[in-house]
């Protein structure tokens, strides 16, 4: 009975403790509406107030007109942009000569840009990209300065407008009854400034067709993150912008998933000292021996990426999409209309006629793999694995190459169309330009044949007319959403039989790789040693007393 009472007391204590601290699971409470004191006037951190520039005091009618004004002072900016992946949507991997970039790769989200450019180019830093093959990449005035340098938050590029913002009030999405207002170009142009989490995030938080869909460690919660979500971007703390780490030179932004740094150099970067290493690595600031109080942890940095311990989970503020099955797309309501079925949370769809089935997950425990920075893609024309899973991208890495560390990954799994004869992936033509009628767009007519035929034609790929769906997976190294150090992985989360790194091969990990028999022998030896010491000591004491 006493044990029972003790147990109950403990249970009650736990229950009270939990009840006292936790909020109900209802929708998050609104912040307290306390009266805030009037903010003091802010001094511009820039030495230029763009609202005072005569060049920008015009009634701009289009984005290119704004760019022309920008370039009248920033004469080299467009030339610099022209050399970046943000502009060319193309990059040749020197390791294997694969042509990558948005113009060439295929993924297992919305698949690819070919035939869908008018829609996809709302995230291109250029105006008028209706077709990636025919777009004028030499035009300087087609560079969109505002998409990165807007500080008002009012500059929006809507899908379907080929990279333009809307210059007049339009109904968007078409048929929705909602009106998207024309952007106020003079106001936005006169308020340009440094890039911010908002401007980078306008594309990178919404990759894959929506908020938190693609990356898992990049979503709109990082616009104003709390410390628990990211210690560097913490809006009330260090408040890093993206460019704080992705330090730009001549508009070229380091830190690409096409060229990830598997194993960053050891020393922290120093001002004034030339360093060709990636400034967007942890080591570029922290070095490779950052653990001052727990020296033992520094012995891990040679094999384990910082992110492995310091990003214990991703998608910690909102769920990220984890699977996407295109094969079920196209089911309609009995009266032939698009249908959506919400998931258990009620906040996301688990089915949408235009896209198929999805799953979302929050606080995702990453998968882990050796990563040395080399990557090979399955591109259009490459064979798929019809008997198993086709890896859209495959990162290189091994425990013995001296270039790898163990990295956390988001592995996105799906099913997508491939050609039954060529055995290679297909691009569906999905989206239709704003106000256009296009019977081949899948999101308009739900006909796979027409969509795949149009997609293949735009991509310059053969299409036999016979298709099926193949399982694919795509890996995304996780590097953002760095948690406070108190929330880093503990030793036992990896050093355990079924710990986080259970699947990692090629490295000995105490406890995970423990041998039961060896442990027993060890303990017996320790016990024998202890017994020997006790017997020896006891005998000496006994014999000493005996004289």
């Amino acid at each position, binding site marked *: 009975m006493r044990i029972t009472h003790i147990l109950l007391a403990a249970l009650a204590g736990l229950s009270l403790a939990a009840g006292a601290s936790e909020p*109900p699971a*209802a929708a998050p409470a609104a912040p307290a509406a306390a009266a805030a004191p009037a903010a003091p006037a802010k001094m511009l951190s820039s030495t230029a107030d763009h609202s005072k520039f005569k060049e920008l005091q015009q009634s701009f009618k289009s984005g290119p007109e704004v760019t022309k004004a920008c370039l009248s002072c920033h004469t080299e900016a467009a030339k610099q942009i022209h050399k970046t992946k943000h502009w060319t949507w193309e990059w040749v991997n020197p390791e294997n000569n694969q042509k990558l970039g948005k113009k060439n790769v295929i993924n297992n989200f919305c698949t690819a840009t070919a035939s869908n450019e008018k829609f996809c180019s709302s995230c291109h830093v250029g105006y008028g990209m209706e077709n990636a093959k025919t777009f004028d990449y030499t035009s300087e005035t087609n560079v969109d300065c505002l998409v990165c340098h807007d500080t008002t938050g009012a500059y929006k590029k809507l899908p379907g407008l080929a990279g333009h913002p809307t210059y007049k009030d339009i109904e968007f999405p078409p048929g929705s009854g909602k009106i998207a207002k024309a952007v106020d170009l003079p106001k936005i142009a006169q308020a340009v400034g440094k890039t911010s989490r908002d401007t980078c995030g306008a594309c990178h938080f919404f990759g894959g067709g929506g908020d938190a869909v693609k990356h898992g460690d990049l979503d709109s919660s990082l616009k104003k993150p709390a410390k*628990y979500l990211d210690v560097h971007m913490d809006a009330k703390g260090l408040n890093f912008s993206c460019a704080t780490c992705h330090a730009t030179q001549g508009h070229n932004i380091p830190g690409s998933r096409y060229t990830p740094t598997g194993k960053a150099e050891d020393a922290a970067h120093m001002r004034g000292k030339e360093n060709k290493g990636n400034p967007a690595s942890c080591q570029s600031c922290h070095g490779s021996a950052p653990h001052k109080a727990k020296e033992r942890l520094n012995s891990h940095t040679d094999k384990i990426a910082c992110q492995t311990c310091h990003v214990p989970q991703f998608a910690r503020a909102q769920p990220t999409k984890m699977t996407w099955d295109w094969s079920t797309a196209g089911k309609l309501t009995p009266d032939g209309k698009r249908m959506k079925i919400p998931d258990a949370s009620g906040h996301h769809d688990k089915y949408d006629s235009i896209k198929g089935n999805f799953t979302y997950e929050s606080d995702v425990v990453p998968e882990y793999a050796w990563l040395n920075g080399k990557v090979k893609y399955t591109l259009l024309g490459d064979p798929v694995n019809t008997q198993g899973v086709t890896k859209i991208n495959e990162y290189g890495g091994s425990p013995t190459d001296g270039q790898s560390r163990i990295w956390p990954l988001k592995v996105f799994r799906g099913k997508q169309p491939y050609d039954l004869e060529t055995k290679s992936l297909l691009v569906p033509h999905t989206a239709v330009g704003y106000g256009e009628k296009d019977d081949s767009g899948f999101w308009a007519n739900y006909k796979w044949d027409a969509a795949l035929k149009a997609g293949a034609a735009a991509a310059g790929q053969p299409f036999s007319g016979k298709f099926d769906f193949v399982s694919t997976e795509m890996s995304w190294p996780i590097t953002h959403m760095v948690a406070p150090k108190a929330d880093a992985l503990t030793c036992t989360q990896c050093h355990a039989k079924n710990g986080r790194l259970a699947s990692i091969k090629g490295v000995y990990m105490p406890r995970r790789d423990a041998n039961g028999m060896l442990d027993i022998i060890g303990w017996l030896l320790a016990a024998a040693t202890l017994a020997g010491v006790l017997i020896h000591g006891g005998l000496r004491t006994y014999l000493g007393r005996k004289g």
Partner: protein
Amino acid sequence: MLKIVGSFVLGIVFTGVLGWNMMGGMMFHEHLSPFGVEETVARIQHNIEAAGNGWSLSGLRNPAAAVKADGGNALPVMMVEACSTKYSGPILNEDSVRFLSILMPCKISVYKKNDGKTYIGAMNAGLLGPMFGPLVGDIMSKVAADQAKFIIMDPSKPTPQIIYPKAAGGGGGGGGGGSGC
């Protein structure tokens, strides 16, 4: 004689140590869920609503949200609270066992572990009940039988949606009222 007493004492100590070590595991049980946290919660909630015997939802708590609000991180944990006045009434009307109200409402915890999988944790009502006499033992055995139904995860059934509690009020334990527990 000394040997007998010694062996007896050793036996008691051994049993005590064994019992102490096993007690935690016996008082609660844990099951792997084939679904994610949200879907598991939603299915449990709908099972509770369909269980009859006076069961109703009395709250849904998210202790991990409190940790996040405090600047830390915790893997998802959601606690489904349910109550049946048919079972709670007799206990609350009996002075000698009224202290068991600290175990009310009945809670089922759904959480994710470091292996990325979702688990369901619940109190072993069938084992705990008899410790408090026949009245509680009888009630808790029925609670245990119902509890087993709450955690049935039937993939053939369509995904239900989480029932978020309404604004706290009445006796909902902070997670939304309704059941009167």
